[in-house]
């Protein structure tokens, strides 16, 4: 089940955004090793690739702590957390609980 951490919720309230999207993860074959890093998170509705339509069913909309969370459908049943990370003063929403390999 997807959850949003208190820090991430505070960030969303501050930004005034009521919806969030988790991007599609990328899988890379790096010479006998396949890795898929945590997908990016951005505010707002899912953005299809430029010039392409979003294929139906590719995203699932979830309601989490009053926020509309769009996640790739194949990830919708995973136990992952939207969290807030800080690098000095720069804040960023990220996915935690992800298995890389």
């Amino acid at each position, binding site marked *: 089940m997807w959850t949003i951490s208190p820090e991430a919720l505070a960030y969303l309230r501050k930004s005034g955004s009521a919806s969030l999207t988790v991007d*599609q993860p*990328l899988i*890379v074959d790096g*010479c*006998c090793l396949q890795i898929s890093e945590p997908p*990016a998170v951005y505010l707002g509705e899912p953005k299809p690739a430029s*010039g392409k339509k979003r294929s139906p069913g590719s995203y699932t909309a979830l309601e989490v702590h009053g926020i509309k969370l769009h996640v790739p459908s194949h990830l919708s049943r995973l136990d992952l957390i939207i969290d807030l990370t800080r690098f000095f003063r720069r804040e*960023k929403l990220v996915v935690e609980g992800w298995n*890389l*390999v």
Partner: protein
Amino acid sequence: MHALYLVIAAACVLLIGYRLYGTFMASKVLAVDPRIVTPAKRLEDGHDYVPTNRWVVFGHHFAAIAAAGPLVGPVLAAQFGYLPGALWILIGGVLGGAVHDMVVLFASIRHDGASLPQIAKKEIGPVTGVAASFAVLFILLITMAGLSIVIVNALNTNPWGAFTVGMTIPIALFIGIYMRFLRPGKLGEASLIGVVLILLAVALGPMIKNSGLAFFFNYSSKAIEIALPVYAFIAAALPVWLLLAPRDYLSSYLKIGTIGALAIGIIAVNPVLNMPPITKFVNGGGPIIAGKVWPFVFITIACGAMSGFHSLIAAGTTPKMLESEKDIKIVGFGAMLMESFVAIMALIAASVLPVGDYFAINTMPAVFAHLGMHVDKLPMLSHLIGVNVAGRPGGAVSLAVGMSYVFSSVPGLSHLVAYWYQFAIMFEAVFILTAVDAGTRAARYVVQDMIGVVIKPFKKINWWPGAIISAALVSFGWGYLLYGGNISTVWPLFGVSNQLLASLAMVVGTTVILKSTGRIAYALTTFIPFVFLFITTLDASYFNVTKVYLPQHMILNTVLSVIMTVLALVIVVDAVIKWSGLLRDRKTLQAQKVRHQAMVRELAAK
């Protein structure tokens, strides 16, 4: 002997092996059932689980397993003569490697695309699952060092090569930005632009080499040994789409073209194999690999014969893509045999070199001086290439020289020797840097997860102090191995760890087959290769520790060797306990045997 005889013999063995043994494994032992709905269809989600045409899956799987390994190992093993390596590639490939890949792929499909440690945990026990996870981490670290040392010896004091390889970084960054923002989704177009830019970088090399800019690309071995872990530390912190993914696409395109060109070149030119079938170094004392042909040819050549790394791919994304179980044979068994063919090509490319030239390239000058050999064409080749290629052990240079030798024998291409050489170096370096980046990322995550058990904030993958510390630990770890070692100390360690992983995968395979068929005879198809490889690897590890690492006070190498051995023994003991339990339960075994036989008959009747 002309190379074409070996090519034809290899092709025949591999084709017959696929047709007979591959069919036996698929239809009798595994009893692949096209009626079973694969996880790709059952769990289809448009992203991870995607039913895909078998030839696309074949291409994807082959591209993932065949990278630098089948090119470097056979070249180093040519030290023993071409015959030991050729026999191991062909026999080991059919009876070991292809079986290994196919059985792991089958097991993963039957476990809904689970990874090897997950399958191990389920089929054998949690101890094995944990041990396998630790083993994978150590293998990653050792692999980074093993592959990096190949680049160090290829690029030191080679401004052209360093420039070309260095340029692949901004080219990959550009392609990443191109695909993300400028022309999203245009993979073919972006890759084509990337390949053209890379070829341009190769072509511009002579200009850089002969200009004042050469100073900025003329690095010593030690400088490169420091630069590579630093590169990996930085690259592993960048988003995947920016550097790693585009580098991956570029290397796939380069690989298909280059390997295809090499095969065509060897068949067209039909060069003479100057390396004898057997050299005096089969008895040990070799300048590249110190040990005897047994066990070291089996450790030096992993990819191309039998490689534990393939189990990470066979239980990775491939099982989530197969439309039908009947595709397991062509993808699991067939792709491995194709890689064996690539390995034979690499062995030939090294063996066409005059013997003295081969050893002059793969040993330091001070060592070569005591071998009682003389160089033949090397001074001329070094002059044509514009780089002194002597004293550059690691496999990449001798492969590049061999490839240049083959390509330059094609009418009309002889004046391009230098370009062929630098292109071959760059081609291998692209794979290796991709592996180094991916491996450092993966290892960083594993290390962070492990430290997180004790220091809770590390569990958060995106907590930047934890990410930086973990990445630094990983980069420093393999960097230390690289800085303090050479091809003769690092590659055998990599070979041992890789083959231990292969042994562990065969342990899992034996358990799966015993449980599903109830027949000991069928379980022997994985058990025998496991026993052979395990004993061979343990012997090699013992030699490494007692004759190479301890005398040179290489403590980290020793510790890693011992840890890997202990982990492997833990898993084997755990598996033997499991097998004993299975074999004691004769009633269940017999029932399963009857069920399996009935299924085989039913499938054969269709």
